[in-house]
């Protein structure tokens, strides 16, 4: 019975939490939040799902290998860092699209960087937790 409530709740919580984590990531530049927190929240959502169902189910849900998120995130962050160099600016200079969007407000290379951080954090956390629980 307990399990049932937990599972049902998790089923709703997972998309909500993921959405929330992306929201947190996007607004990070203007309000509390950012890549680190966003990534952690997303990771917690998946961990919760793994507890409610099984690790196997969660794996199936994520579809891609979550370990791949680490190199992808690193590459994204690195790419955003060297992006200004193509325009002859020093590394890590912020580049901006001058048209504010809702929630995100202005979009710039630092958002790309933060997204990279987000992906790395998700990848790292899931790798650690899942590896441990698998072999526990």
């Amino acid at each position: 019975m307990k399990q049932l409530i937990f599972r049902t709740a998790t089923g709703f919580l997972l998309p909500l939490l993921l959405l929330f984590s992306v929201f947190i990531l996007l607004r990070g530049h203007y309000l509390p939040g950012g890549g680190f927190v966003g990534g952690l929240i997303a990771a917690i959502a998946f961990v919760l799902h793994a507890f409610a169902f099984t690790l196997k189910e969660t794996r199936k849900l994520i579809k891609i290998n979550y370990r791949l998120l680490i190199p992808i995130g690193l590459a994204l962050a690195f790419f955003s860092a060297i992006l200004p160099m193509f325009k002859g600016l020093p590394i890590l200079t912020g580049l901006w699209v001058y048209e504010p969007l809702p929630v995100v407000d202005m979009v710039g290379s630092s958002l790309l960087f933060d997204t990279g951080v987000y992906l790395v954090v998700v990848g790292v956390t899931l790798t650690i937790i899942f590896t441990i629980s698998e072999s526990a």
Partner: protein
Amino acid sequence: MEIILSVIIGLLYSAGIYLMLRRSLIKLVIGLVLLGNGVNLLIFLMGGLVKGRPPIISATAENIGLIYADPVPQALILTAIVISFGLQSFAIVLIKRAYIVVGTDDLDKMHSTEEEDD
């Protein structure tokens, strides 16, 4: 408040060190976590305690007001928290692996395993 916080920092340090001096591996890691918390709080305290003024520029303004919490230690601690998670998970796994290989979590026994074969 600062006084109480200072005392708590001291307490966290003491507890952390005391646990690190134990022979049990698991206590050592808990001690490490407590010590890390103490350090974070100490850095936080150094930046000064400000109530209700997060280092965020309000949506309408271009500039932050005169009184605001120091963002530098905050950024520092945020990094430290995340990194310490990496460190702790690695430490925990190391313990586990060591326990599987050696069969004990007594640090003193681990010390003697490398010379066991001669």
